[in-house]
């Protein structure tokens, strides 16, 4: 949501003149660029546990971060009040990074080649109902209704924990180029944990949804969808076994398997890792990294998506960035610093957790475009024998080596081209570039997963991910 300029200036008790003055103050010791990031966030949480909504919380967070860039060096400080003495003190602290002699505005100016200006028509997350003024009691029946649906559908349910979270952030950004950007960012999320019991054994399922939306997020259809997903596959959970491990074909299901793309490839495409020489994809622009027909993007333009941005946290307009096109590595993900370093335009990936953090290259919604190799069934048939992964969880990657490990939340054994035994408690182990190169087929069923994905690289930033069904050969499956 983008309101008028006066709303945001008043929100933070500043004028355009004071913003200009602060940027100048931050550059008093030299440096080539400075920017200001004002934030006023209000978040709420309601929790249903033991069949009642008996716990609630809300939080206010307010402040301004001030950054100075001197070449690729960063000075950063913030204030939790926006009176001029506090802001001047933060500007002075951030200015420490410059040594008093260096002033090279061209370095960051060179990266100032992007498109777009504030454009309410392009607002990707207009908010119909403002969480800040809504009464929490309105949402209690929504949570209670979800539990009723779950218990009605699945008698093995012993516990339901449902957490509804929301936040609304007013943001104002200004930089030493004189660019002023402002917007309001809503975020709504629900997390369900359901515990089932059968013959003394316990299993649990987690389901979540998150969108950049206002209170219009709360609908009967969402409640029904969540409840149905929460009880899906309970028989398989109790029947699942840990299979034999080894190297085998792996078919990744469409949607949430995209987290592997985010972790194992996406992080290695973030240009700060490239700039520092830490990524296995350093120096590979223009090289083939996977088979023809594969395109991988990072997209900040999906309406109401958790990873959508009207502007990134450096004021650069949100964009859709193709990292791999037709199998060729075409772009890294840039903030202003790395864009300046590589002499390219920033890609709108400069993001941060809050005003307390300086922005760094971060993903938004990362996914692989649909392929032309048929359906999920075709991929399972082509795999012959191996593992089908419905959902991954708890993935981790080493950026330099490219090695990754992902826990398989749910899946099936593939035998003779058919799904057979449900499997659990296994890991898929591999290497990012090798796994990319070993993709044998991509189905035409891209699905973006709308779960509560949060990326934890140095700071927590909300993201989303997606993938069509994909067949990868020769991955290590850790089992018995």
């Amino acid at each position, binding site marked *: 949501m983008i309101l008028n300029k006066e709303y945001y200036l008043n929100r933070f008790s500043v004028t355009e003149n004071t913003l200009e003055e602060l940027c100048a103050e931050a550059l008093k010791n030299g440096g080539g660029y400075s920017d200001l990031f004002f934030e006023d966030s209000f978040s709420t949480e309601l929790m249903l546990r033991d069949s009642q909504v008996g716990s609630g919380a809300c939080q*206010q967070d307010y402040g301004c971060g001030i950054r100075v860039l001197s070449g690729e060096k960063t000075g950063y400080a913030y204030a939790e009040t926006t009176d001029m003495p506090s802001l001047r003190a933060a500007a002075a602290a951030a200015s420490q990074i410059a040594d008093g002699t260096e002033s090279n505005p061209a370095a960051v100016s060179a990266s100032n080649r992007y498109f777009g200006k504030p454009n309410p028509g392009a607002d990707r997350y207009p908010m119909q109902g403002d969480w800040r003024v809504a009464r929490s009691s309105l949402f209690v029946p929504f949570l209670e209704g979800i539990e009723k649906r779950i218990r009605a559908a699945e008698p093995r349910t012993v516990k339901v924990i449902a957490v509804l979270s929301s936040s609304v952030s007013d943001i104002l950004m200004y930089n030493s180029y004189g660019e002023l950007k402002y917007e309001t960012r809503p975020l709504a999320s629900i997390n369900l944990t359901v515990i089932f019991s059968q013959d003394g054994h316990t299993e649990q399922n987690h389901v979540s949804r998150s969108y950049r939306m206002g209170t219009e997020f709360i609908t009967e259809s969402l409640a029904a969808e969540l409840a149905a997903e929460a009880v899906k596959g309970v028989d398989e959970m109790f029947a699942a076994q*840990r299979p034999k491990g080894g190297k085998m074909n792996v078919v990744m299901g469409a949607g949430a398997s995209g987290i592997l793309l985010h972790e194992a490839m996406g992080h290695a495409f973030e240009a700060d890792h490239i700039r520092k020489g830490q990524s296995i994809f350093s120096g590979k622009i223009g090289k083939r990294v996977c088979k023809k027909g594969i395109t991988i993007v990072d997209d900040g333009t999906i309406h109401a998506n958790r990873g959508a941005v009207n502007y990134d946290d450096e004021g650069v307009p949100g964009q859709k960035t193709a990292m791999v096109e037709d199998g060729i590595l075409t772009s890294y993900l840039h903030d202003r610093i790395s864009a300046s370093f590589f002499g390219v335009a920033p890609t709108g990936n400069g993001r941060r957790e809050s005003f307390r953090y300086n922005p760094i290259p971060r993903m938004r919604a990362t996914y692989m475009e649909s392929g032309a190799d048929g359906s999920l069934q075709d991929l399972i048939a082509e795999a012959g024998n191996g593992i089908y992964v419905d959902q991954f969880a708890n993935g981790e990657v080493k950026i330099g080596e490219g090695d990754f490990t992902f826990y398989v939340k749910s899946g099936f054994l593939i035998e003779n081209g058919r799904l057979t035994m449900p499997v659990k408690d296994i890991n898929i182990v591999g290497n990012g570039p090798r796994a990319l190169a070993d993709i044998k087929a991509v189905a035409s069923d891209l699905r973006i997963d709308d779960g509560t994905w949060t990326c934890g690289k140095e700071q927590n930033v909300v993201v989303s991910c997606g993938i069509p069904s994909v067949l990868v050969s020769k991955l290590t499956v850790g089992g018995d």
Partner: protein
Amino acid sequence: MIDVREKEIAEFALRGALEAGAQKARVTLIKNRMDLVSTLNGQLDKCTSCMDRCIELTLFVDGRYGKFSTNKLSRESLPDFIARAVETARMLAPDSFRDLPPQERVQKNAVTGTELALVDSRYSELHPEDRKKTALEACISGKPGHELLVTEEAEFSDGIYDTIIMDSQGTFCRHTETSFEYFVEVTVKDADGNLFSAYRWDESPFLEKLDWRSCAEKAYLKAVSSINPARLRGRKCNMVVDSEVASKFVSPILRALNGTSIQQHSSFLEGKLGQKAFSEGLSIIDEPCVPGKSNTCMFDDEGVATKAHSIIENGVVREYFLTTYSAAKLGMQPTCQGAVRPRVKGWPEPGLGRDDILRICGDGILVTDFNGGNSNTATGDFSFGIEGFEFRKGQIVRPVREMVVTGNLLSLWNNLTACGSDARECMSKLIPTLAFSNVDFSG
């Protein structure tokens, strides 16, 4: 440090909550200051200066409960926030189990915040230039003997952390500590251009005790030692877990002892209180109040006094972690919020280090890092990606990668071979090198 005016604001918030309709309330005032200097390849990369203040309000309103926080600490803005908080709490379902802790359980001897002697008097004398100097001196980039180094990224940070808890029953607790930390991650390259990375860090309440000088060298040697790894076939063998990462197999036990997990039937230790669930070699004690030591505190989030106690003794589960709320829900006596500074005791004899344990085990896999995976608190099943080394006859022979260790925590801990006495004092959990037999690895 929290000043008189800020303390008065906290008292103002507590009074305001009661006047707005809460019958009981707790206010937690937190003030932190942190400065950080980052380096990249021996050059200054980033300077950050942070100051945070916030008030957390825990309200008990007409039998209902809510938790609220704000960093807008002016007398003008707080009343509106408190009114909104009380209104929100009133919309919730009553929960008769929510209450402040009884006064006899509350800490009464943490008044100045400095009782545990965790404040370095030199902190206030530290100048921005001192921080830059220390950060740069710690680097190995450009120094001889590091020819394989590709990237060295490091952070030197220091801070002071001050917390006051007060409630409507007269509780007042304060904890103040300084902290100095150095973290470095290095990446090295082998002859074929493959990258290998490793990290090392240290932390202390006192600058003088911070070992920032040797971190980068240790990280470099660790990264170099992992060059040319082998991918081993799956096997069942001994597993030795380095003390740096051994908490991976202890943290799930502590989570499973949490009262909420027990009450929600999502703990593999439900029903195990007082029973022998693990090898007799496993004893975990909590040492929350050792003066001068990192990660200590005399009270928990409710203001309840912490004390030394046994969590697991010779394999027997001695305690669940029960707050006022979770104890009331379970109909049990409250114990503590959780382990503050847990320590695994040495076994079968005290004083063993990693090399001793490798010799005891003979052959197997030494785990020095984890990469992804999962541990299921409800079942105890785990599956982790690992990095480390194959060892034979007590000696490390080659690095390994792309392997997975799987099992169940109860059976793993019943195959315990040894617990060392080499836990690093800077860690939040004092877990030494551990050794287990008959562990499943796949690769």
